[in-house]
C-alpha cells in the first residue's frame, strides 16, 4: 500500500512538472545561445550562456522597468493596507451607516472590468497632469487592489472571536487601543496574505500600465516585455531572459511564501 501511494505521489509530481513545461522551456531558452535555438532535441542546451541576461541587463529598459514595477507594486500595497485595514475593521465590527450598500459596492468594484474604467481614468489622470508617473499607476492600481484587500481583511477580522475585544474593553481600553493591541497581532498573518495577493496583482497589471505610461520613467515590467524591441528579427533568447526576470517575484511568492498565498486565495473564495 505504502509503495503504491509513493508511486502515485511521483506520478502526480511528474504530471504537474509536465504542466509547468511552458515555463521551464522558456527558462531553458533564456540560457540557450542563438545558434542553438532551433535545436530542440536536448533538455539542456549544449553550450549554456548568460549572454541573453547580459543583453537584457546592459542594453534594455528592463532594469529600470523592474525598479518601476517594484516601486509601484510596493506603494500600491502599502497604500491599500493603510486605507483598507481600518475600513475592513469598520465593515466587520462597527455600526457604519449604509453598511450593506458599502459592502455591495466593495464586492461590485472587485468585478469592474478594467477596460471599462480605463478611459475615464485616462482622462482623469491626464487632467491631473499625472501621465507617465508612478503616482498615476499607484492610483489606478488602488482602484482594484483596495476592494480586494478590504474584502479579504474583513473576512479575516470576522474570524477573530469578539470576546477578545470585549475583554480589552472591560480593562478600559478605547477602540483604537483595542484595534492596535488585540486585532492587529491576530490579523497580521491575514494582512500578509492579502498584501501578497495585492502585490502580485499590481506586479502583473498590464492594461493600466500600458495606457498611462509613455516612457521608461514609469513603464512597468509587463509593459517593457510587451514592447520588447527587435531590430531585424525577434530576439527570442533576450525575451526569454526578460520573461524570467519578470517572473522572479511571482516565483518567490509561489515557492517561498506559498503558505500565505494559498491562505489568501482560499479565504477569498470560501468566504463569499
Amino acid at each position: 500500500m505504502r509503495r503504491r501511494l509513493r508511486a502515485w505521489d511521483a506520478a502526480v509530481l511528474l504530471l504537474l512538472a509536465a504542466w509547468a513545461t511552458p515555463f521551464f522551456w522558456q527558462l531553458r531558452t533564456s540560457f540557450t545561445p542563438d545558434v542553438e535555438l532551433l535545436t530542440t532535441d536536448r533538455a539542456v542546451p549544449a553550450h549554456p550562456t548568460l549572454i541573453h541576461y547580459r543583453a537584457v541587463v546592459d542594453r534594455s529598459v528592463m532594469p529600470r522597468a523592474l525598479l518601476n514595477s517594484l516601486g509601484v507594486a510596493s506603494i500600491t500595497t502599502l497604500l491599500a493596507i493603510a486605507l483598507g485595514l481600518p475600513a475592513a475593521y469598520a465593515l466587520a465590527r462597527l455600526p457604519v451607516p449604509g453598511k450593506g450598500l458599502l459592502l455591495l459596492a466593495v464586492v461590485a468594484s472587485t468585478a469592474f472590468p478594467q477596460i471599462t474604467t480605463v478611459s475615464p481614468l485616462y482622462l482623469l489622470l491626464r487632467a491631473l497632469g499625472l501621465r507617465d508617473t508612478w503616482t498615476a499607476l499607484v492610483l489606478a492600481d488602488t482602484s482594484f487592489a483596495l476592494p480586494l484587500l478590504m474584502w479579504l481583511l474583513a473576512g479575516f477580522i470576522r474570524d477573530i472571536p469578539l470576546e477578545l475585544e470585549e475583554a480589552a474593553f472591560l480593562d478600559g481600553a478605547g477602540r483604537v487601543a483595542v484595534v492596535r493591541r488585540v486585532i492587529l497581532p491576530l490579523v497580521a498573518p491575514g494582512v500578509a496574505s492579502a498584501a501578497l495577493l495585492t502585490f502580485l496583482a499590481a506586479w502583473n497589471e498590464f492594461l493600466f500600465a500600458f495606457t498611462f505610461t509613455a516612457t521608461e520613467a514609469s513603464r512597468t515590467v509587463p509593459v517593457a516585455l510587451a514592447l520588447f524591441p527587435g531590430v531585424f528579427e525577434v530576439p527570442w533568447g533576450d525575451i526569454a531572459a526578460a520573461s524570467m526576470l519578470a517572473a522572479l517575484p511571482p516565483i518567490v511568492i509561489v515557492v517561498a511564501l506559498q503558505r500565505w498565498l494559498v491562505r489568501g486565495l482560499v479565504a477569498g473564495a470560501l468566504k463569499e
Partner: protein
Amino acid sequence: MTARQRADRRAGLAFAAPAMLALGALAAYPALWVLWLSLQQRVPIFGIARFVGLDHFLFLAGDARFWNAVRVTLVFTLASVALELALGVAVALALQRQRTGRRLALSLLLLGWALPSVVTAKLFEWLYHPSAGLVNVVLGGHAINWLGDPRLALPALVAADVWRTMPFVALLCYARLLTIPVEVYEAARVDGAGRAATLRSITLPLLRPILLVALLFRTLDALRAFDLMFVLTGGGPANTTETLTVYAYRSLFQTLQLGFGAAIGVVVFALVMAVAWGYLRALRGAGVAA
C-alpha cells in the same frame, strides 16, 4: 444610544471614510463617468466633443465587427472556463491522494497562475513558433502556424488561458477536499461503496458549492480578459481572436474614439454585471452557501 454606541458610530465613520473616498474617486466616479462618455462623440486629436445620445449603441447593434467580438468573447469564455473546471477538478482529485511532496506539487501547479499574463503570452508565443516552437516539435515537426491561422488562433489562445487559470480552480477544489473528514470516506467504504460510487455520491456533491464559486470567478475573469490576447495575437488573424475588450482598446487608444470605445466598455461592464447578478440569484435559489 449609549456613549459606547455613539463612539462606535464615530469610529466606524472615521475608519471607513478614507477607503470609501478613495473607492469613490477611483472606482465609482470612473464607472459613472464612462456611462456619460459613452453618450458622446469624443475624438481628442480633432478636438471633437459632442453629445450623441445612444448613437454608439445603435451603431454597435448593426456592427458586424462588434458581433464578431461578442462571439469570440463568448466562445473564449465558455471553452476556457469549461476546460479549466474539468481539468481543475481532475488535478484536485489527484492531489487529494498525494501524501509526500505537496509543497513542491503546489509550487509547480501555481507557477502558471502567478506569472504576469504578459509573460504567459511570451511563453506561448515561443511555444507556438512555426519552426522552432516546442508544440510543433512534439507534434512531429509540422510547420503549423498556430497564431497565424484563423482556424487555430482562438483554440491556441484558449489553451494558453487554460494553462494559466486551471491552477486556481484546482487549488480551490483541493482546499475543499482537504476539509472532508476521513470518517466520511471510511463510512462509505464500510457501506460497500466503490471508488466510482464514492466519487459520484460523496466527493463531487461536496465540491459543488466551491465549484460554483470558481465558475463565477473564472467566468467574470474570462469575460474581461485582455492582456493575453492583446499581447499574444493582438486580436488577429483577421479578427478571429478580437474579444470585446480588444475591440474596445483599439477603438479607445489606437483609433482614439474615446466615446465609441467607452460604449464597448459599457457593454463589457453590463455583461459582467449581468452574469454576476444571474449567478448570485441562481445560488440563492439553490440555497447554496459556499
